[in-house]
Every structure is written in structure tokens, then in C-alpha cells.
């Protein structure tokens, strides 16, 4: 359907003249007596709806279905006509709800049978309808503004549905002529206005309503061209359920709808909670949800049935257990909003509530033979129910080469977990149009900008990076740890790589603010070493290399111990090679060095540039010391030694336990 087809604008013109107050003569029994109370009670006489009531409730049903399936930009303008016209709403989007129309109708009330019939006419409403069709809608305005020099592509078409009681075929012809004339007049007016648009096509659907048991004075007539601008069709319908059926068919025709009946819905019985029966629910939706059936000529197989009551045919789909979960990404070729035909029947409301509570149902085609084919899924999103069309054919993409066979497929140390975190940080969230500051970039552009910032330096594999792995050391990713410790480079080469990387990372952001620049300056400053230190390093390197192997265990241990001080790195201790003894074995001999490792730096390190390890250790120590009061013993220790429980000596040498008892 084109954006600006006749379906964009529908004007309802409903007759409010005195004769519409007449009874439809279809009686409704509303006092259904229950068996237990039937004794001696005279039931209420059946009530009957007026022609007006029939017209109003059927037009409301038309709008209900329309708004359910097209909540936006298929617009209705409701006009009531008696001695003058009453426009009950506008084309504005906020006016497009049945609730809005219902309260406006309540204010209008039923036709006044005592009003002078001579003053009353449907013509007032029809003229107003043509005028209304010339009024520009929000969507038309938006598109015209956006398209600038191609604005003429925005068309102005519309439909007038007139519910009335006409006097004769001649009367109908008179109405058509009058509409035609009004269109010509209004188009002339529209040519000179910005807020009006000339009508390019108008479809008149005239529904003549007459009471049951009477003969119609107006004959049915299929659609015909009155002029290049106007087509007209006439439906002569008895009030009551015939009218309801007619408008149901019309709404389906006008908005390309089709019907699906969900069958075999298991429902608990109201009376007997333990038993369940199967129910059917009919839904309307855009007919493209059946496209596959129509195309393949498979309609019959899909369980179509033409119904006797004159309604259009429906396609049956079977409720299918098991249900699907939301984590699965189905291959879905279309999703169409639905509207139940019988919205407040118990089976309908059971189904819709089930779906609104967030559950989805797969639907299968009923077939006598062969495997079951799941072709649709019902699912709700944000309080709206959609019929999803699932692909049930063979995929042309089957058996593709696995991603591991292609470029980059052999690499095994991608930073999958880190990129997962990255993705989570770069998730999106809706920003309401009211809270968006139009002077700023659009939210999505800000999302792109954030991605740009976050990827200025982002190594894709673990072996390409040191700094991001250090972050990961505290996690329990053993593989990462192995990789970092297994580095082929000697220790100070590793530091050099790390510093280089850190500098690269910070450099990419240094331009952002002065403070970013200061971080970069700091890193650069940390790296620059005093000249004599460089000399010494050079001399020492040979020795270091030689000793590296033997020292490795020892130095690594020191490193480990200090890491252990931070609360996070407990797991790391499992890697320390010398804690392999059983818990019962005597105290390990190297307890002393552990105590010393924090404050006794190896002499050559103390002079050199600050190592990252000691920067980090100091940071953690300072942070920890803020969290607790320093142990008195350590604070007043001599050579890191302090005698514990000194007070016991002062208490007459008495046993602590006995002392405790005595005081009782």
C-alpha cells in the first residue's frame, strides 16, 4: 500500500437526522435468567438498537480494527450530520483513538426524533467531509517539508464512508453529484493555500441502512467512476448484524487485511478448572502475512474455508506447543499487527492476555500428511501483538564455509570476553524525542562517536597487548595468565612494550582535554630515565639475562605476594609454584621474605625508574591502609618485630581462663 493511497484518509459521515432514531427492529435479549433464579420472575422485555446505535457501533468497530492494525498514519475523521455538521475529531495523530471518538459521540447523543426533518440532511456532513479531505495531515506536511523540490510526489487521496438512510437511487445520485461539485470547488480553493491540498482521488462508499423487515429503497451498486476524481459504490444493508458484517468486510478490503483463525488453543474451563478444551480465535492482520499461501496457490492446504455468513475467508493455523523462547532469533520475513475480530470474547481475551504477558506461540499449518510446518509466530512487543511470518523453506545460505575457515579464522587468542564487555558498554537505549536536545547530534550519531572513541586503540588478540591483559590478570581467565607469563621477551623488554602500549593508548585520547594531556605527560615523564641509570642498566643487562632464569621463581614470587595484597588477586596465588605442600606440612621456610617484600625493595630497583608493579603495590597499600586502622603492633614495631600479648605479663601471671572465671 502506498503511503498516500486512499487509505491514508478516511472520513466517516454518519447520519444524525431524526429518522435514524428509528428502531433497527433487531431485538437483543439482555436479561438472561440463570436457572436457579428463574422461578416467578418476569424477564425484562428485549431491547432494540436504533439505526443510529447500529451505525455508531459498527463504525467504531471499523475504527477499532483499523487503529489496532495501523496505529499510525491511517487516519479517520468522524463527522456527524443533522441540521448542521459536527466534526468530532481532527486528522491529528493524538485524536486517533476510539476512546476519543466515543466520548465525542456521547456528547452528541442519539438523534432527536422531534427535530424538524426538513432542516436535516446528510449533505451538510458530506460537504464537510470533502473540505476535510483537503486539509493536510501531519504526515503529508512532514513529507512535503522533507522532500522540498519533489514535494509534488505527496498525493492527496481519501475515502468517504457515508452511513445513512437514503430515500432512493435518485437521492443517492444527487449526493454523488453534490460531492463531485464540492470537490471541484474545494480544489480551486486548495490551489491557493499552503495548508490545503487538492483532492486527486476520492472514493465514496455509501452504506444505506434500513430497519429489519422492511424492503430497501436503494439498490446495491459496485464501484464506478463518477469523474476522474471520484468513484462511488453503494451498499444497501439491513441494520444489526448484517451491517456489522458489511463493515467488517469493508475494513478488510480498504486496508488489505486478511483473517487467520488460530485453532486448538488449549484453555482451562471456567467451571471445571481441571479440564481444558480447545478453542478457536479469529485475528485480522495485513494480508501479506499470507503472501506465501497466496503465491504458492497453497490456500487450500493451509486450511482455508469460505464462510457462509458472507465474511471473507480465513486461514486456519494450529496452536503449537512447545513454546519458543525470546533468546532465539527466528528468521522472520514479516511481522504484522493483529486485531481480534471478537475482541472481548473469552477465548480472544485469554489468547491476547497470554501473549501480552510476554509469551510467544508458534503456529503450524494443519496438514493431513507429511511433517509439520511451522509458518508463523504470535508475539507481543511493548503491548502490541504481532503475527510474525517465519521462513519455512530451504535456505539458500545453507552449508556456508565456517568462519574459522576464512580470514582470521586460524587465530585462537581473540579477546572475545573483552569485546563482549565492549559491546555491553556500547549498547543502545531509546532517547525520547522530548528529551533530545535538537542542537546536539542525534543520539545514534553520538553512539557512533562513542564507538570511535572506544576503538582508537583496541588490540584484537591477547598476544598483541600487555596492558589489557594486566587488567585481566585479576580475573580467573587462566589462559590469559599463561600467555602473559609465557611471554618470549625478557623482563625489561616486556616493560618497554607495556610502556609503549600505554603511551599509544593515552596518546590517542590526549587531544580530548587538558587533563588527558596531563595523563600523557605523566606517562612520558615516568618513562624518561636518569642517564646514569641507563648506563647501569646496560652494564647489568648481561648479568640479568644470565640470572634471569634462576631468579625467575624468586622474583615472580615477590611479585605474586604483593599482588596478593590486593583483595582481588586471590586466585593468582594458585599459580605460585612453591605452595604445593599439604596443609599439614610445617610452616614454609620462606615466611620471612614475604613479610619483608613490601617495604624492602631490591636495591637496584629502588634507584631505577618506578616500576609499574611498585606503583601498583603502593597504590593498593595506600588504598587499603585508608580502610582500616593500622595495627598498633606494626606501627610501633622495632625492626618489624613487636611482642604480642604484653599485657598478660602485667596481670600477676594469672591464667587468662581462670581470671575470666574469677571475675564472675
Amino acid at each position, binding site marked *: 500500500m502506498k503511503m498516500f493511497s486512499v487509505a491514508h484518509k478516511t472520513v466517516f459521515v454518519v447520519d444524525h437526522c431524526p429518522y435514524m432514531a428509528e428502531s433497527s427492529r433487531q431485538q437483543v*435479549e*439482555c436479561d438472561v435468567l440463570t436457572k436457579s433464579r428463574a422461578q416467578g420472575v418476569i424477564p*425484562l422485555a428485549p*431491547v432494540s438498537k*436504533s439505526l443510529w446505535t447500529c451505525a455508531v*457501533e459498527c463504525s467504531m468497530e471499523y475504527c477499532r480494527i483499523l487503529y489496532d492494525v495501523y496505529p499510525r498514519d491511517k487516519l479517520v475523521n468522524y463527522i456527524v450530520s443533522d441540521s448542521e455538521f459536527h466534526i468530532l475529531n481532527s486528522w491529528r495523530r493524538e485524536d486517533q483513538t*476510539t476512546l476519543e471518538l*466515543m466520548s465525542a459521540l*456521547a*456528547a452528541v447523543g*442519539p438523534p432527536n426524533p422531534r427535530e424538524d426533518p426538513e432542516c436535516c440532511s446528510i449533505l451538510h456532513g458530506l460537504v464537510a467531509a470533502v473540505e476535510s479531505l483537503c486539509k493536510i495531515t501531519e504526515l503529508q506536511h512532514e513529507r512535503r517539508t522533507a522532500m522540498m523540490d519533489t514535494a509534488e*510526489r505527496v*498525493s492527496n487521496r481519501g475515502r468517504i464512508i457515508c452511513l445513512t438512510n437514503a430515500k432512493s437511487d435518485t437521492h443517492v445520485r444527487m449526493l454523488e453529484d453534490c460531492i463531485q461539485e464540492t470537490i471541484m470547488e474545494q480544489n480551486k480553493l486548495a490551489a491557493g493555500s499552503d495548508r490545503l491540498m487538492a483532492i486527486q482521488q476520492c472514493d465514496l462508499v455509501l452504506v444505506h441502512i434500513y430497519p429489519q423487515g422492511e424492503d430497501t429503497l436503494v439498490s446495491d451498486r459496485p464501484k464506478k467512476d463518477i469523474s476522474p476524481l471520484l468513484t462511488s459504490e453503494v451498499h444497501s444493508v439491513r441494520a444489526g*448484524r448484517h451491517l456489522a458484517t458489511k463493515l467488517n468486510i469493508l475494513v478488510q478490503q480498504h486496508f488489505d487485511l486478511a483473517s487467520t483463525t488460530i485453532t486448538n488453543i488449549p484453555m482451562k474451563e471456567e467451571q471445571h478448572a481441571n479440564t481444558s478444551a480447545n478453542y478457536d480465535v479469529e485475528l485480522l492482520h495485513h494480508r501479506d502475512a499470507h503472501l506465501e499461501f497466496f*503465491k*504458492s496457490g497453497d490456500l487450500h492446504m493451509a486450511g482455508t474455508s469460505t464462510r457462509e455468513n458472507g465474511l471473507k475467508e480465513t486461514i486456519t493455523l494450529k496452536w503449537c506447543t512447545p513454546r519458543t523462547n*525470546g*533468546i532465539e532469533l527466528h528468521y*522472520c*520475513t514479516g*511481522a504484522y499487527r493483529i*486485531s481480534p475480530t471478537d475482541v*472481548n*470474547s473469552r477465548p480472544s481475551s485469554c489468547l*491476547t492476555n497470554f501473549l*501480552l504477558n510476554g509469551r510467544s506461540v508458534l503456529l503450524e499449518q494443519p496438514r493431513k500428511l507429511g511433517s509439520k510446518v511451522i509458518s508463523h509466530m504470535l*508475539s507481543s512487543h511493548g*503491548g502490541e501483538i504481532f503475527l*510474525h511470518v517465519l521462513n519455512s*523453506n530451504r535456505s*539458500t*545460505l545453507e*552449508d*556456508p564455509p565456517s*568462519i574459522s575457515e*576464512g*580470514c*582470521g579464522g*586460524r*587465530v585462537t587468542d*581473540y579477546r*572475545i570476553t573483552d569485546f563482549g564487555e565492549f*559491546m555491553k558498554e*556500547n*549498547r*543502545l*537505549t*531509546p*532517547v525520547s*524525542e522530548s528529551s533530545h536536545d535538537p542542537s546536539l547530534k*542525534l*543520539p*545514534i550519531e*553520538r*553512539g*557512533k562517536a562513542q*564507538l570511535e572513541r572506544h576503538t582508537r586503540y*583496541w588490540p*584484537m*588478540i591477547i598476544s598483541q597487548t600487555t596492558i589489557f591483559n594486566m587488567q585481566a590478570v585479576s580475573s580467573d581467565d587462566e589462559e590469559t595468565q599463561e600467555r602473559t607469563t609465557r611471554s618470549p621477551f625478557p623482563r625489561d623488554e616486556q616493560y618497554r612494550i607495556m610502556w609503549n602500549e600505554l603511551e599509544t593508548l593515552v596518546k590517542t585520547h590526549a587531544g580530548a582535554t587538558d587533563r588527558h594531556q596531563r595523563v600523557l605527560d605523566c606517562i612520558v615523564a615516568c618513562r624518561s630515565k636518569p642517564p646514569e641509570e641507563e648506563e647501569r642498566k646496560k652494564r647489568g643487562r648481561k648479568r640479568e639475562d644470565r640470572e634471569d632464569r634462576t631468579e625467575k621463581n624468586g622474583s615472580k614470587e615477590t611479585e605474586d605476594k604483593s599482588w596478593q595484597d590486593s583483595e582481588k588477586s586471590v586466585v593468582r596465588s594458585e599459580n605460585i609454584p612453591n605452595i604445593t605442600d599439604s596443609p599439614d606440612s610445617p610452616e614454609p621456610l620462606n615466611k620471612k621474605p614475604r613479610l619483608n617484600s613490601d617495604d624492602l625493595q631490591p636495591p637496584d630497583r629502588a634507584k631505577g625508574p618506578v616500576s609499574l608493579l611498585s606503583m601498583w603495590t603502593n597504590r593498593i597499600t595506600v588504598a587499603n591502609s585508608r580502610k582500616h586502622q593500622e595495627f598498633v603492633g606494626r606501627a610501633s614495631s622495632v625492626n618489624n618485630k613487636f611482642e604480642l600479648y604484653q599485657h598478660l605479663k602485667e596481670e600477676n601471671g594469672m591464667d587468662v581462663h581462670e581470671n575470666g572465671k574469677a571475675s564472675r
Partner: protein
Amino acid sequence: MPTVVLMDVSLSMTRPVCLDGSEEFQRKNLAVHGLNMLFEHMASNYRLEFTALMAFSSLWELLVPFTRDYNALQEALSRLEDYDKTCVESALNGVNNVVQQEWGSACPCQLVLVTDGSLGIGKGSLRHSLQTLKQRGEDKKFPLPFPFPTKLFIMCVANAEELQATDAMDNLEELLRLSGGDGQIFTVDGPLCMKSVQGMFGRLIDFAYSPFHAVLHCGNLSSDVQVFPRPEPVVVDDEVEPMPQTVSTDLEIVGFLEIADISSPPVISRHLVLPIAVNKDVDEVGAGATDELEEEPSASQMAGKSPNFCVLLHGSLKVEGMVALVQLGPEWFGMLYAQADSKKKSNLMMSLFEPGPEPLPWLGKISHLGPISEAAENPYGEDDSKSPFPVTPQAKRSYAQNVTVWIKASGLQTDVQKILRNARKLPDKTQTFYKELNRLRKAALAFGFWELLKGVAELLERECTLLPDSAHPDAAFQLTHAAQQLKLASTATSQLELKHGRLSGTASEVFHVLFEELKGTRHFFVKMR
């Protein structure tokens, strides 16, 4: 998009082509040569395409069902035999059957019809088929347009002048129009020879079988990719925007979403996103051709071993159960996700949404999705327990609100019974009683169904007389009062104004006031006791 090659094997295809000095060829040989060239191209550059080979004369035959085995297709070409006359219509019926059986009616297909432009004679000829188009019953309809979207490529082993000398060109153009107009008629430039036929098939390859290369970006991370099958241009509304929209060769990730939030969205097509090494293609023509041959395996190994963003993205999307939202054009988006087939082979896939600013109502406008870091607090919650999706529309749908529909008598009866059931349980059910009564009253006023209001008022009065002696006095009061108010509402607001001088406004406002008053009275009753 699967391809069907439909090869004319009628006798006219065996007509010799006069080439001075060299050996004699039949038109069939030239066609086979051209098709071999196409198959070789596909085997190396478009090998995921499924292709079927059919031969036709007055009958048709499926020689090779849909396959990616291009050797099998070439082999079948070498074994072609010669038959009688050309009958395009029956062959098209054959194509229709073969395609629908394999792919259903939604999958777009390409049809390569190879013929010499002599389109049969008499009954069964294309001319006859087209002349009788309008005189057919439902069961004998012309097979075009096919139910599935079709691209029709007509490869004529003949030059344009030759075709225009008869009505062949007109008939072929009509055929293309009938198929939906998507496709092209190719003819040989200049005299028929190997080279000119090669040229014609070369144009087909460029037009329809050249791989779609793009660059996938995520900020500064990127990867060269091939998107397979080629994304097709899309026209959403031929009136408002008749220019087809095409997928950009820069695919830009704009952010990430959870699979549960994107929630099986409708898509117009699905594509594999295959990382490619671009440099290899650039320096394919070089001096040391032999060296390159030796290096080729190592080059592809190198490509396998150098990290690629697609592989990283695929791995993380798979582990986290997320999708990447990707921008394809000015107002066109799609999603990237990891997809595993039944054999556990996993791949990076891209699905395209319908072009437009709001392809999925439950995400809202895509341009209004922003980074979570700008939100006051993380909308996903600190432990990922929440989600800002789905976006809920302002107005509720009819099935999500308690609408009143009395088109069927049962709807009205149920609503009346509900009121009566509650009426019998007064004063315990006072609140529900008034809620239901108010709903009925509101609908009756909107529908102008005043007779119903009178009827229900009578029913309530009857209930009042049927109250047992043990009933609470408040029950009788509520029933009488409600009945009275319904009667007032069913006449006219003016009467209400007479009785309650201070009341004015619409009927619903009046009722609201009455309802408030009523509640007050009930309290008064309770207090009195």
C-alpha cells in the same frame, strides 16, 4: 539468490556460424562456451550460489538440480544433445515447478535463458503464447510472472540486428516485461564468434554475478568483507521515493542490542558476511606470475592467521547472545549476528530491515537510540536485569484495554450479567458493581443506546424487590440509587440540571459528580450504623 540456467537445445541452436579460416562452430557451441565461462567465474568468485541447469525444446528436462558443484554443471553442458523445436512457455512452467519445489514462493531467483532468438513456430512458439495471453482459463495461465521475485536475463546467441529483423526482440521484450521487468536482454556485439559471446557473458557477470565487497566498520576497527548474496536495491514506495535505495559499501556498526530485545525482527533479506583479504586481488597481475602461484597457499594461510575483526565480532556476539545494529544507508539499518547451522558451523550473518527511520516499532526511531553511557543510570541495570526495550506506544491497542463491543448479543448479555452478579453481592461488591455499571453506561451513552440504560435500571429495581430479608440495608439503597441515576442518564442531561441546579456539563461529568456523591452517601450510611 539461486540461479536457473535454461538452455535452448532446439535444432536451430545447431545452425553453424561461419567463421572465415577457422573450424566451424554451432551456435550451441558458442552458448556452451559462454556458460562455461559463467560457471568458472561463479566457481571462483560466487561459489555459494546454488545453480540448476535445465535444457528445453518442446519438452524440458532438469539436467542438474540446484548445486554448488560447478564441475557437475560444466560436465552436463558437455553432454547436451539436440532436440526438436523451441517452446518457451512449457520450459517456463518447468522453471516454476523446479524453483517452487526447492525454495518455495518467497525466495528471489535469477533465470538465465540462453537461446538463439529463434523462438519456435506455430503452436507452442513464444509468439503464439503471447498472442493468446488473454484467452486463457485459470488452469492454463501463462507462467509469468512467477510467484517468486524474478530476475530474468535473456542471453541471445545472436546480434541485435538479427533479432530486430523478425519480431523476436519484441517478443523477448514482452517476456521480460511479463516477468516483472527486473532483468535484461543481452545480445552479441558484432559478428558471432567466441570472443563476442565471451563479451556478452562478461557483461552478465558484471551485472549480476560480481561479488559485493564492502568494509565493515565499528569505530576504528574494520574488516573487508564480501556480502553474499549481493544485497538488492529496494524501492519502498514508488510514489514518494521512486529511486531504489542501495546498500552502502561502508557498513557502519552503530551499537549493540540484546537478542531478546531485538526479538525476531522481520527482515527483507539475509546475507553472509565473509571476511576477505583484499590485497591479494590488487596485485594479482604481476611480473612473477610463477612465484605467486607458489605463494598462494601461504598467502591464504597468512590471511587465516592475521586477526580479523569479523571473527572477533562473531565470537563475542555468539558468546553474549547479542546483535550489532548496522547502518546500511542514510535511513536504512540491519543487524549482524552469529548464526550456527545444523552442522554447528557458525557464521557472521547480516539481515536487512525494511528501509526507513523506524523499521521495528519496539525499538522506536533508530536515530533516537543513543549510548547508555549518556543515560542518568544504566537502563540495563547494574546486573543486566533490566532492559529499556520494548518501546511502548502511547495508545494501547483495543485488546489491551477493556473495550466494550456489543455487536454480538452475547457481548451485551455478558456485560449485563456481570452487573447483576455484582448487584446480588452488594454491599461487598460495591466497587466492582459501580465499575461495571459505569463501563456499560459510558458505552451506552456513546452508542446513543438509551433504551439499554432504561432496561438495566428496571433490572436493578427488580433485583431490589428480590432482595432477601437478610440483605444488608445498604444493598437496597445502592440498587435504588443506581437505577435512578441510569434513568436520569437515559433521558437527557437537561433534566439532571433541573434536579441538581449546580450540575452542568457533559453527561459523563455529571455522572462523575453523582458517583462521588454516591460514595459519600455510602460512607454516611456506614457511619450512621
